[in-house]
């Protein structure tokens, strides 16, 4: 078995030690730091991206909150304006109504006064016509010409009963 040929041991050990140490130094000083740098760069890049993404998310949330706040404010303002307008409208309406009521009352009073006056006038005319008619009737029926004052008195008495 060639493995047990001890004459080859020194050369194998020597070259093994040389090669292993060379490889160790190359790995330790050259290859592994490079790979580690690549991995580290990727990790930090990913972390950066994640940080930036969460910052953007934060920003978006803030923008949304601001938008909602302004929307609510506009809403409230519109509501207030609407209420003010409604109140003004109601006030105007009631003022106009009161005005109308007052005018109608005044007109009613005027009309009543006019009616009363006309009634008075009519009554006065009735007295005169009644007197004339009574005078004419008495003259025709009994042939007595009743004097003006007596006639008036009788008519007033009759009218006063009525009233």
């Amino acid at each position, binding site marked *: *078995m*060639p*493995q*047990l*040929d001890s*004459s*080859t*041991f*020194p*050369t*194998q*050990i*020597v*070259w*093994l*030690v040389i*090669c*292993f140490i*060379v*490889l*160790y130094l*190359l*790995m*330790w000083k*050259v*290859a*592994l730091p*490079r*790979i*580690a*740098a*690549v*991995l580290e*760069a*990727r990790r930090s*890049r990913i972390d950066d991206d994640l940080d930036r993404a969460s910052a953007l998310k934060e920003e978006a949330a803030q923008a949304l909150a601001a938008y909602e706040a302004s929307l609510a404010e506009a809403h409230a303002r519109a509501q207030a304006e609407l209420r003010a307008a409604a109140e003004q409208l109601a006030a105007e309406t009631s003022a106009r109504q009161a005005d109308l009521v007052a005018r109608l009352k005044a007109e009613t009073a005027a009309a009543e006064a006019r009616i009363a006056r006309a009634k008075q006038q009519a009554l006065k005319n009735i007295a005169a016509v009644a007197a004339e008619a009574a005078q004419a009737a008495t003259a025709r029926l009994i042939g007595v010409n009743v004097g003006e004052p007596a006639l008036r008195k009788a008519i007033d008495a009759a009218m006063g009963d009525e009233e």
Partner: protein
Amino acid sequence: MAGAEQLNPLEQFEIHRLIPIEIGGVDVSFTNSSLWMVIAITLVTLFLTLSVRRRALVPGRWQSLAELAYEFIANMIRDNVGQEGRRFFPFIFTLFMFILFGNMLGLIPYSFTYTSHIIVTVTLALTVFLGITIVGIVRHGLRFFAFFMPQGVPIAMMPLMIPIEILSYLSRPVSLSIRLFANMMAGHTMMKVFAGFVVILGLFGGWAPLLVDVALTGFEVLIAFLQAYVFTILTCLYLNDTIHLH
């Protein structure tokens, strides 16, 4: 047929001197074993440096492989040793890559598997064993030897337990080195035996051992990875024992 020598399944493990070198009467020739070690460390270095050359944010195939190897060993150390293991990361990574490439390159026909030589695996295992023992003594001082006194065992049992613990501790490099060497050697020998059958049976029946060899090659790729993994993870576990005692 080129003769019986060609069919000797152990012939592939022979060491050939490519550049004879002798220092102080010791033969340290550059051999086929040395050549494949140099090829392996060159490939590992080229693979790991060229693949991350572009430092791409989204890795390509080669960069993914390099990152995968890095994270594979980094996770292994984190899971098995913990934070204190980070200092040993370059060493353990080198160990894994050196064994993995040795095993894998050995599967190429006409190549040489340096991990199939017991002296190589013993040297690696002893380096790990001595290194870990030194780490333990530096870290814990004399308390390190409490490692050999299992807790919760009656004092009366100690004369029995301590030799057993010491023996099991000392057997670690033995099992570590023999496991790797035996796996590599057995696999390659078996493939060579079946390859020999292909030559003997020729066109008539050679396809059957050829199929076996194809299957074995796939199997050996698994073994090559698995043995590198086992060697590395056992190193991690031993390191963990030593750092945290028990």
